[in-house]
């Protein structure tokens, strides 16, 4: 197990593309470790053995353990810190902007409305006033504060894991299709609305940071990476529908605006967003780019990914979540990509390998 000091230095170097080895987080379980920590019922505590490995099924004897490993001052997993954060499945940002979340038990999800929007069809002719739902905002900040009070003695506290970006909030307000129609037919109004929504994102992100205590002068982000300053992460799921030209014209400026408001930001993209990688890594103020490497047809094959990732990692640190990778593919990523700026999080378990669907 690495010491806190080692990790702090590793993370500090990673943000600067100066780490000598990649940050790795190999998850052996079905769930992300931090999912266990999202409620006050902490379970699945991982036991770290004297040699630094995790306890496996079978007998446990005293010689396998050491007090230092059993009582770490900070909880870590792989090369990251394990943050506790408010429940991430709620579409917090959309809810704060007035879109009522909809639970789908069958879909195991909570959606921001039904994709039709809550504003009138002629939204661009109106004042486009976004009414903040203070109850949702208070709940998010209150939950963050609760996490701080309850867990900050043993764990890092982070902002909630899913904060969808201005284009997603806009879709919640005007409807999915009308985001595109707005970009084509009412570009100025669309830009104005997106800019307004970026301000709201920044306000919500700062409201959470305000109640999270600093650690060594910095914060830990939702992926467990410490940074020597303020952090945040956002995403633009709706950008998956956009051409690179539309992303550049409408979203790059607001992603830049969010990046400018914090010291170390990261944007979350899915595989389908691979076409926007160049534009987003051109944002000088952006700290890092995270890709969830969903298998085709969600996005490129790993072979197609490699040259793209090689290009992007020269500009920004990359957080790669590959949940369906085989060991061979993990090895390929580690061999092909430079360690500087690479953070790979993956499963290596039979279940994960057996359902891998990457096809070269």
């Amino acid at each position, binding site marked *: 197990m690495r010491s806190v000091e080692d990790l702090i230095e590793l993370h500090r170097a990673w943000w600067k593309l100066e780490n000598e080895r990649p940050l790795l987080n190999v998850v052996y379980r079905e769930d992300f470790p931090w999912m266990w920590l999202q409620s006050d019922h902490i379970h699945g505590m991982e036991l770290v053995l004297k040699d630094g490995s995790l306890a496996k099924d079978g007998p446990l004897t005293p010689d396998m353990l050491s007090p230092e490993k059993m009582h770490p001052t900070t909880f870590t997993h792989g090369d990251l810190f394990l943050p506790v954060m408010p429940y991430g499945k709620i579409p917090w940002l959309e809810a704060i902007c007035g879109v009522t979340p909809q639970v789908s038990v069958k879909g195991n999800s909570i959606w921001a409305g*039904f994709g039709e929007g809550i504003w009138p069809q002629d939204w661009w002719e109106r004042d486009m006033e976004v009414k903040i739902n203070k109850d949702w905002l208070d709940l998010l900040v209150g939950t963050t504060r609760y996490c701080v009070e309850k867990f900050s003695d043993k764990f890092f506290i982070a902002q909630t894991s899913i904060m969808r970006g201005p284009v997603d909030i806009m879709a919640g307000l005007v409807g999915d*299709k009308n985001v595109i*129609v707005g970009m084509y037919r009412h570009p100025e109004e669309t830009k104005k609305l997106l800019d307004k929504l970026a301000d709201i994102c920044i306000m919500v992100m700062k409201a959470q940071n305000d109640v999270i205590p600093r650690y060594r002068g910095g914060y830990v982000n939702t992926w467990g990476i410490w940074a020597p300053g303020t952090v945040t992460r956002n995403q633009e799921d709706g950008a998956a*529908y*956009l051409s690179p030209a539309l992303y550049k014209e409408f979203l790059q400026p607001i992603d830049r605006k969010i990046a400018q408001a914090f010291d170390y930001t990261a944007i979350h993209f899915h595989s389908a967003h691979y076409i926007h990688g160049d534009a987003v890594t051109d944002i000088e103020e952006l700290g890092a780019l995270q890709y969830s490497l969903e298998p085709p*047809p969600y996005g490129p094959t790993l072979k197609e990914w490699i040259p793209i990732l090689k290009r992007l990692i020269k500009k920004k640190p990359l957080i790669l979540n590959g949940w369906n990778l085989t060991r061979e593919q993990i090895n390929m990523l580690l061999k092909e990509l430079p360690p500087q700026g690479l953070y790979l999080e993956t499963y290596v378990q039979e279940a994960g390998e057996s359902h891998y669907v990457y096809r070269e």
Partner: protein
Amino acid sequence: MTDGEVLRKLTKTMADIDFEGTLKACEDAMATGISPAKVVEALSDGMRIIGERFEAKEYFLSELIMAGEIMKEAQEILKPHFEAGQITTAGRVVMGTVEGDLHDIGKNIVISLLLSMGFEVTDLGVNVPAGRFVETVRKVEPDVLGMSALLRATVPEMGNVIRALEAAGLRGKVKVIVGGLPLNAEYAKKLGADYYAEDAWKGVEIIRKVVEKS
């Protein structure tokens, strides 16, 4: 401008996703007395080019969405110029996102493109239970039933709908096409679907061919 030039311009503005330009060209064509059928043909040529550009990854979903919007508006301009009996339905389609899933952008693109091509579409929306698909198929008697899902967890629901159609004795009366990112042709077959649409554009092409055959 000659009729040929007007029509070529129409095809080009459509292919370039030029909203105002296409509608203006439609109005110009009507003003110069070009038959609406020829205008529809020119627009369809534009759509074909859009499809090619989408396949070539020069266009993206945003362009397909706008293409559907342009065609919808263009039809409004053309409608009054068609003589009675000239407007026929290209085919009848029922579409919906299966229960438990609220993702509908792909489905909506297919619907908007089908509408623009003269199909009659019943959109059941999102989170549609199997029973509602069955009821609607019974009532509307469509040529094609299209189902969409984005989540792995909800894709099996497509199989439930197909089984419910079988139980209701309706399976032989309708072709079923499924689409959505977690699917592939093999999985679609396992679910019992007749066709699998890899993307929105291919879905439209398949539906066109299915209806033409029938």
